């Protein structure tokens, strides 16, 4: 069973739909025991960083996430909340990755919305079968800086972390659940870990 962490962020049903298309059973939950018992955990989200962090702390979900030993995948806001801090509402985040989340300078259209390719810094199981020219779907106003956990970068206005990995924690800035066949392959790679 895949646990999808329930919190005050949108887009959670999309992840469940995407998993269902891959034949995986999932449960949307904020219950610590259920999350820690799951084979894999997905931490999705579209929303605002400081209010999301406040919610996670109030519900104790931040502590639960730190205890997860099984593979966990953060998506979009999920990725950003796994970093050190975010300029969105100037909040400290979970600190799993060393990257810091900053606002895009207004040198081009913001949000970064639509399909973009990426650069792979190293071959990685989560990107198995994916080519750098393959496109993934993005929608975000804030980006994660590069850090030692960065596996792949995307370039829009400037280079930012689009795939991060440390221990059992994985994260993508793009939305694999909305990225057609390429995204489905990445989700399958995560399920196969």
């Amino acid at each position, binding site marked *: 069973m895949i646990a999808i962490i329930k919190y005050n962020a*949108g*887009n959670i*049903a*999309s992840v469940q*739909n*995407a998993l*269902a*298309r891959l034949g995986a059973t999932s449960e949307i939950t904020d219950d610590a025991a259920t999350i820690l018992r799951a084979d894999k955990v997905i931490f999705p989200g*579209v*929303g*605002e960083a400081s209010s999301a962090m406040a919610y996670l702390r109030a519900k104790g979900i931040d502590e639960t996430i730190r205890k997860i030993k099984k593979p966990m995948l953060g998506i979009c806001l999920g990725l950003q909340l796994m970093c050190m801090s975010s300029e969105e509402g100037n909040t400290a985040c979970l600190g799993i990755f060393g990257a810091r989340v900053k606002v895009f300078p*207004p040198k081009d*259209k*913001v*949000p*970064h*919305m*639509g*399909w*973009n*390719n990426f650069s792979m810094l190293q071959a990685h199981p989560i990107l198995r079968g994916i080519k750098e020219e393959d*496109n993934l*779907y993005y*929608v*975000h*106003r804030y980006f994660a800086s590069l850090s030692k956990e960065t596996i792949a970068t995307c*370039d*829009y206005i400037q280079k930012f972390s689009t795939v991060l990995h440390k221990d059992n924690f994985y994260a993508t800035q793009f*939305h694999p*659940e*909305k*990225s*057609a*066949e390429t*995204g*489905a392959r990445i989700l399958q790679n995560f399920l196969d870990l």
Partner: protein
Amino acid sequence: MLKKRIIPCLDIKNGRTVKGVNFVGLRDAGDPIDLAKRYVKEGADELVFLDITATIEERKTLIQLVKRIAAAINIPFTVGGGIQSVEQVAALITAGADKVSINSAAVKRPALIQEIADRFGSQCVVVAIDTKLVAGKWEVFVRGGRQGTALETTAWAVEVARLGAGEILLTSMNQDGTKAGFALEITQQVSELVNIPVIASGGAGKPTHFKTLFQKTEASAGLAASIFHDEEVAIPVLKNYLKKEKIAIR
């Protein structure tokens, strides 16, 4: 590089796809799910579903349809048509819509844009602007293009961006249905003035129209309905053509 998006639009009435000219002479054109899946397979970058029904009963059908769409397709989609309240938006987002498109209700009560953005994030608020060149001025029209307003298009675009719109869907009524090409001038004027993506709509008739749109304006996407629907222009053909013309396309 960020790609220019090709977006087919489906008109929906009572849970079915419909076709007609200016909402007149509507005829059933099948199950939206079948058409949506076809477009996804052909390489559409996003889809827009525009509900043209009026009654509350039919709106319930829409929510069911949105759930089925969300389960069936793996690309983002927008739902629009007659949205007037944050509650309606909540129901659509919960059902699985990635974005909602608002039009007349935003003109009537601009604060609605901010209310939706505050609750669900700017990224899910598409403000649709229907515009028509009247006596040398691009005027904003509402109620499906039937009613003029005192608003000038570029000023309204700047205002909706300020209020938290994540994207503007700009339809030129002069071009709509003509298949003579997009309204380049107003599209570029709006694109230059706002820092959010602009989707151009109205007038697409052949692949060169998309090339011109992306070469002459900063539009992020081109939207069309009938040419994709009738397979006058197949999406794979269009995308291959644009790639050959060095436009950044997925």
